[in-house]
């Protein structure tokens, strides 16, 4: 080594000095260019609490995702704790659409001019539901007379099954002041709670819709064994998608078509199956005529109706 020429040492030293440059010259990963996805337009979709708040939201989540995907909108579910809140939310402009029960739908049509688009056709081929008044089989209650001094669980003042049906029943059975007839009346807020309150003895008589009872019966056979149905209401349209007045016409058509054509693709069929429906069918204001006349029968003025549970 010592015998090498100075040139050799200069080259070695030069190469060593160049070493740090090797790293600095290496290809530095470029900062990822931020691809900002074009923000989708929000579409607020309201839900009423047929069953507990969380199960109800979960039930509609897949459907909302499907509508989002097909429409290019960002559909956000907004679950409300009271049926009447949906009217307030429409009024304050916080909702673009909602899945409403027959009475809330009729109320929203009369009060706000909302437009119904489509409703599910259930697996049994029906797109309707009806209300039930029920008691425990061992309660000994067989008619309106037996109900005196008992506890009645309504659902909400904005429901057909949980309010209109009982009021009609009271009228037909000459119960003029139901609050005096019963020892206690209250609003459970959900059909599920009205059913379970009677089953568990928290109330003596309850009113709720048949579709919720049937859904719950699938997991709890006690409901069939221990509950007795005293009265039913006429069939009314199932919970339908309604949209606010003034919503873009092309968007209305788009939303309606998405729902009506859901059964034509595999993903849509799967969601419908989980939802318990065969497909969606077209719904118009005319479908609510039965609810309007049912309300008229007990002299309810829907345009000025006070839906607060008191």
């Amino acid at each position, binding site marked *: 080594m010592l015998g090498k020429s100075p040139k050799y040492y200069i080259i070695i030293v030069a190469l060593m000095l160049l070493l740090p440059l090797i790293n600095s010259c290496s290809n530095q990963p470029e900062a990822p260019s931020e691809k900002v996805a074009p923000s989708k337009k929000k579409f607020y979709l309201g839900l009423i609490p047929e069953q507990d708040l969380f199960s109800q939201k979960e039930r509609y989540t897949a459907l909302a995702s499907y509508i989002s995907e097909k429409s290019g909108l960002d559909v956000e579910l907004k679950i409300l704790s009271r049926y009447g809140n949906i009217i307030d939310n429409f009024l304050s402009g916080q909702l673009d659409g909602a899945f409403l029960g027959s009475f809330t739908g009729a109320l929203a049509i009369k009060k706000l001019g909302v437009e119904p688009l489509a409703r599910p056709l259930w697996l049994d081929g029906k797109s309707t539901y009806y209300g039930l008044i029920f008691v425990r089989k061992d309660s000994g209650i067989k008619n309106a007379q037996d109900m005196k001094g008992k506890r009645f669980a309504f659902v909400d003042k904005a429901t057909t099954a949980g309010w209109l049906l009982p009021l009609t029943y009271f009228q037909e059975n000459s119960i003029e002041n139901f609050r005096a007839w019963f020892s206690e009346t209250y609003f459970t*807020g*959900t059909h599920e709670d009205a059913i379970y309150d009677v089953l568990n003895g928290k109330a003596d008589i309850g009113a709720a819709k048949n579709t919720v009872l049937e859904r719950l019966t699938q997991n709890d056979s006690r409901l069939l064994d221990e509950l007795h149905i005293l009265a039913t209401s006429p069939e009314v349209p199932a919970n339908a998608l309604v949209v606010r007045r003034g919503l873009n016409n092309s968007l209305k058509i788009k939303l309606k078509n998405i729902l009506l054509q859901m059964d034509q693709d595999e993903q849509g069929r799967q969601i419908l199956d989980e939802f318990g429906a065969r497909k969606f069918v077209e719904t118009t204001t005319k479908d609510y005529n039965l609810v309007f006349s049912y309300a008229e029968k007990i002299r309810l003025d829907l345009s000025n109706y006070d839906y607060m549970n008191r």
Partner: protein
Amino acid sequence: MKKKIYFGLFCLILCFLAGGLYIGKSIDKVTKQLEKIIVLNKVEFLRKNMLNKVVLVQSDLMLKDTPHSRKVDIFVKHVEEMHQAASHCLNCHHEESVKQRISHLEEKINVYMKQISRVYTLRANEARLKNEKDSAFDLGQEAGRDQQYNRSIFL
């Protein structure tokens, strides 16, 4: 002399081998202990996270019908997060006894969720409302206590 050198070398190699084995084993032991600590930390984090979510929902419940009550949207979000935290616990464990305890806890959380939903939707007289609210609060406390008990099993 040559033999002595070979013997010395052999002893040296033997020492190195023994040392190497000892070091390897020690590292392995320490790594296993560290892994266990990491898993326990993770479990403890999940447990505390879950407990915090329960406390948050309990506070929502207590603030209901007061001037500081939270919006239903926020309450629903808190409950969903609590449910997610409870489901997350079930993903980690495979031992049957532990799995059963966590499934039991998840069932309790589901009952609690039904009850708190009821508090938010019910409109009744004060006695009934108070009764339902107290019942929901007790279920939440019970779920929290179960989590504390589970800690003693895991750690």
